[in-house]
């Protein structure tokens, strides 16, 4: 590789991934003080001062965090169980290929599908009615647009866990964990000990950055909570879109402010999480 190339590559990469988002953030910041955006009315701290009285953003953030936490926990658990518990099947046969199938579904299609499957007049409800399990519409459990966000979590897990399983499997192969497995067995460790002491920490450590990304992606999910969630509490993206697209243009600065706060908050969260990952890395 020529000497200059990496620098050039990194430089333009920096311009793209740092420059553009920061420019966007700066635009949001300027918008929140009335200096940018349509109908910008000149410098004002009004919207920042009003932030203190607005609990809806905090509520949306907490709800999103709860959903993202549940999704991450369930997906990692399922993916690890698959990769560590069914390693033999993953190496032979069609199981690995099968895991690619859910990745083909865009989030909106997943949301539409689960709505048609799980709502109280959906396919499962119809089948259960025909089977005599439920009598009236209301007898069927509330699985979408429910208070706890079951529908959202289910949809996100269905999309996330196969991806994580594929990732873990790739790391498993690339790190030659199988060789280690043989080695630890020769040294007298049990299969369970190998999984817990060797494979699990290594997989989690190497996948940590991607896990973080997937958690952040869930935090910012839009289509799924829009179709399967409730208008209150809302997840962050739905909340932000609602504010950005309100019928009142005069509310835009408050929306820019909310966007700035969310992006800033996520950034701090990312940096903190990365620091933690770093501390536990090799």
């Amino acid at each position, binding site marked *: 590789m020529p000497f200059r190339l990496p620098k050039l590559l990194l430089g333009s990469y920096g311009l793209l*991934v740092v420059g553009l988002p920061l420019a966007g953030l700066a635009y949001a910041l300027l918008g929140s003080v009335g200096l940018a955006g349509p109908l910008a009315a000149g410098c004002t701290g009004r919207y920042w001062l009003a932030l203190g009285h607005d609990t809806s953003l905090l509520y949306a953030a907490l709800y999103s965090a709860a959903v993202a936490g549940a999704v991450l926990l369930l997906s990692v658990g399922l993916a690890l169980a698959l990769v560590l518990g069914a390693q033999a099947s993953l190496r032979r046969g069609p199981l690995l290929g099968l895991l690619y199938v859910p990745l083909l579904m865009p989030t909106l299609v997943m949301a539409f599908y689960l709505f048609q499957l799980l709502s109280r007049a959906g396919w499962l409800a119809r089948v259960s009615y025909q089977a005599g399990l439920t009598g009236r519409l209301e007898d069927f459990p509330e699985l979408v647009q429910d208070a706890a966000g079951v529908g959202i979590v289910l949809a996100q897990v269905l999309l996330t866990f196969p991806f994580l399983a594929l990732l873990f499997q790739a790391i498993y192969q*690339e790190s030659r964990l199988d060789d280690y497995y043989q080695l630890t067995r020769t040294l007298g460790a049990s299969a369970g000990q190998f999984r817990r002491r060797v494979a699990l920490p290594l997989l989690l450590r190497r996948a940590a950055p991607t896990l973080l990304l997937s958690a952040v992606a869930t935090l910012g999910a839009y289509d799924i909570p829009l179709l399967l969630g409730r208008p209150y509490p809302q997840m962050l993206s739905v909340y932000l879109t609602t504010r950005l697209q309100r019928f009142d243009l005069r509310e835009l600065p408050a929306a820019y402010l909310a966007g700035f706060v969310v992006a800033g908050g996520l950034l701090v969260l990312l940096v903190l999480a990365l620091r933690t990952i770093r501390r536990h890395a090799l």
Partner: protein
Amino acid sequence: MRSNLLLGTLAVLFFVPFVLLALLAVGEGWRFPAALPPAYSLAAVRGLLGPGTDLLAGLGRSLLLAGTVAVVATAGGFGLARAIARSAWARHWEVASYLPYALPPVLLAVLIQPFIIRLHLSGSVGGVLLGLLLMALPFATLLLRSFWTRQATEYEQLARTLGCTPGQALRQVLLPLAWPLLRTALFQTFLLAWFDFGLTNVLSVGKVRTLTVQVFAYVGEANAPLAAVASLLLLLPPALLLRLNRAALLRKNP
């Protein structure tokens, strides 16, 4: 036995969507409490594939755009990950790579649009490409970052010591070694671009009419058969691609 049960469960779980979508696509007047459609019709299929839409051209555009994004992001990510691994500022570059994800996509599109307009890229493929790479490139870089461990560097150095040119070391040692991660990166970045509606539609002011942009409008609408046909249209090309690339994607590690 246990493995068959697992396979069966996952197969059912993953293929029910296709069955239900197919039923919805051809079912007519299907509502509670009928377990199966009372009548079947191809009206929705005809409605979406009928005259006036340029789905075929859209399919081509989508494939081209998503393919470009996948290749550029994966190749770029591979090189960038290496450059980052060797940089004195590796930590900072890694943190920087997360920056685009601090903005939820719906927010990102709105906030970078003014800059895309000023760069004279609004309404063009270039603007869309830039927006998609903003999402895909750091993703691939971070995913592939885990490849450039000390071990990989040692393999590379070993290969060079044994007389490989840098190109040979890349082709014959590093790429095969990184292949499981590379294929994941390729596949994921392809899908990321393939399924994108928000960024593409906002940054191109609706003018880059990919297949997704054309059919997405129907997916969330009231007409369930049409939404189902549209969903299947989006699913089938990548499914086909997956089928064709099955051998490549699932190649056993040496």
